[in-house]
């Protein structure tokens, strides 16, 4: 498979960048030349080789940098990882899901040996090796969710199912596009979705909730969400807004290609078997405009999507300030040719 983990940063000097293989691996979110809000849930089944969809838990060249950035964020703000006491069973379910997926799909990097409840986990890139008793918290150096998610890319929320609703009762959130675990912890599905404009009117969330409540073991689903971020910053949480909010004013026609990033979240949901909870994973990907325009279909489409984006959505996603500058820059890469349907490069 030949994953080479890069030494790079998501803060300070911002050395994050994508290799050509990582660009093609990026989950480009627009399947046509305009964007419309939709819940668009599809089965989370293994997809095309070399893309973010190849494996249920995606590990890529940014793995070590992501894990380092998470450790920095957690050291500055421990409340980014919280779990209510009744979520312990779900935490163990998550350990099982992540360890078995990672070891199965990336055997040269991770290995898991199970002998009943005696587990042996090896994470070669991070040089971690632990033997523990599954289900016994005292045998791990950290609580189970924190232990495994410090070793797995993406944010994770554990949703408890009660009273016909889902409750965000545990999570680790260090690379969120402008939302806060500390604010949402303990909230129900309807409460934490309240800020999305227009969605309530069309009853999208009632249907989505019903769908989620009925999720079955062994049938994970996924959807894509997107926004834009200035500078390759993973941590754009409300708590640190003073640090990154100002970035939005720094975009100029000269620096669009390097500063403006398309940020895509591949959100996946699994029913967890023993706890009956649901895990909601939010795996973020960043792509610089300069990297995006190496794929002709994506440059045409990105330009057209931004041009036709309804102002209220641009405002909600926080990109109004630099939308026009970015459109102007992208226009050089849009020759007006038609684009083929679907996400993937031609």
């Amino acid at each position, binding site marked *: 498979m030949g994953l080479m983990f890069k030494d790079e940063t998501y803060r300070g000097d911002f050395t994050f960048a994508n290799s050509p293989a990582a660009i093609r691996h990026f989950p480009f979110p627009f399947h046509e030349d305009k964007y419309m809000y939709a819940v668009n849930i599809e089965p989370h089944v293994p997809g095309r080789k070399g893309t973010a969809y190849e494996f249920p838990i995606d590990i890529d060249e940014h793995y070590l940098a992501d894990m380092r950035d998470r450790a920095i964020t957690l050291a500055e703000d421990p409340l980014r990882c919280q779990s209510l006491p009744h*979520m312990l069973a779900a935490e163990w379910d998550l350990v099982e899901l992540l360890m078995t997926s990672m070891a199965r799909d990336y055997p040269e990097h991770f290995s898991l040996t199970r002998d009943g409840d005696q587990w042996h986990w090896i994470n070669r890139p991070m040089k971690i090796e632990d033997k523990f008793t599954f289900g016994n918290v005292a045998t791990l150096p950290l609580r189970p969710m924190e232990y495994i998610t410090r070793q797995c890319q993406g944010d994770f929320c554990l949703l408890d199912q009660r*009273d016909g609703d889902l409750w965000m009762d545990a999570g680790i959130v260090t690379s969120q596009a402008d939302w806060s675990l500390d604010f949402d912890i303990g909230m129900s599905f309807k409460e934490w979705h309240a800020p999305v404009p227009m969605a309530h009117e069309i009853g999208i969330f009632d249907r989505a909730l*019903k769908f989620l409540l009925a999720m079955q073991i062994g049938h994970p689903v996924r959807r894509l969400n997107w926004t834009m971020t200035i500078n390759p910053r993973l941590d754009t949480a409300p708590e640190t807004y003073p640090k990154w909010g100002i970035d939005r004013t720094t975009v100029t026609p000269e620096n669009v290609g390097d500063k403006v990033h398309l940020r895509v979240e591949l959100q996946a949901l699994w029913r967890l078997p023993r706890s009956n909870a649901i895990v909601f994973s939010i795996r973020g990907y960043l792509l610089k405009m300069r990297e995006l325009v190496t794929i002709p279909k994506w440059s045409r489409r990105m330009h057209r999507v931004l041009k036709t984006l309804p102002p209220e959505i641009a405002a909600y996603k926080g990109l109004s300030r630099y939308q026009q500058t970015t459109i102007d820059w992208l226009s050089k890469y849009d020759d007006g040719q038609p684009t083929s349907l679907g996400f993937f490069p031609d």
Partner: protein
Amino acid sequence: MTTNQIRVRVAEVETVAAQIRRLKLVPIGMSGLPDFSGGAHTILSIPDGERTLRNPYSLMSSPYDTSSYEVSVLKAAESRGGSAFIHDKIREGLPITISAPVNLFPVDRRARRHILIAGGIGITPFMSIMRQLEHDDVPFELHYGMRSQERGAYWRQLRETYGHRVHIYFEDQGQTIPLKTLLDGQPLGTHVYVCGPSTMIDWVLNGARDAGWPAENVHYERFSAPPPGTSFTVELARSGKTVPVGPHQSMLEALEAAGIDAPYLCRGGACGQCETRIVSCAGAIQHNDHYLSDAEKAAGDKIMICVSRVDGSTVTLDL
């Protein structure tokens, strides 16, 4: 088909009480069955000649041993097939299919103490729930009522395993569950669960409400089966198909028999998955589900096709 199917073999059949049989199911071609949580059920699909019988049954085996599943089935007084087939025709070795487990009756893990109330065959979900509570070391007590010693399943074994936490009541000896005392004076953070005949569930729900219990601390599961009615016709607005529904058939069963896949999870009017929009209806809708609100039922534009039906000639569905 909305649920994924797992092939199993009936490995053991045992009569555990009058009219109650236990089935042990082992996987075919897999080393183990999916993990599940206490209170989950599976849907058994049993081929019976031309038709397929599909009934939900609670998993009563331990969630910590998924080398097999166990279910217990009471023979319904006037069975249309499912439970009668299990009692009269199922033999050890028979291959059948089951759905992946679904849990509509999970315990609330925030609770500090759980009170479980079972009536008759309603004991089944509590069998797996108690294993889980024991494993998690959470306090619980079971109050289990049954007609008589002969008609009650597992009560001896439960007493042995869980000791003083199990309270047994035999109706023919004039013993009744002391509901009022049970519900009064429980410490904060106690949750109550009931599964059994509908009348018993209503008794507990009303009792808990009158005793001032918050609704979110009271949980129940009804083993509802679709009640019979008269024949009518379903018209499918989108596909233009017409499907007859017999007096002892649910609309869901009739659609399946006609080769049409409609979504379902519980087949008992509880989960909401089979909700279908009514385009028009010549007749009176008989809502038999526990999912739609009274207002929604009165509005008459939605129906749960797994249990509800129409007393009239034709209903047109948005399918």
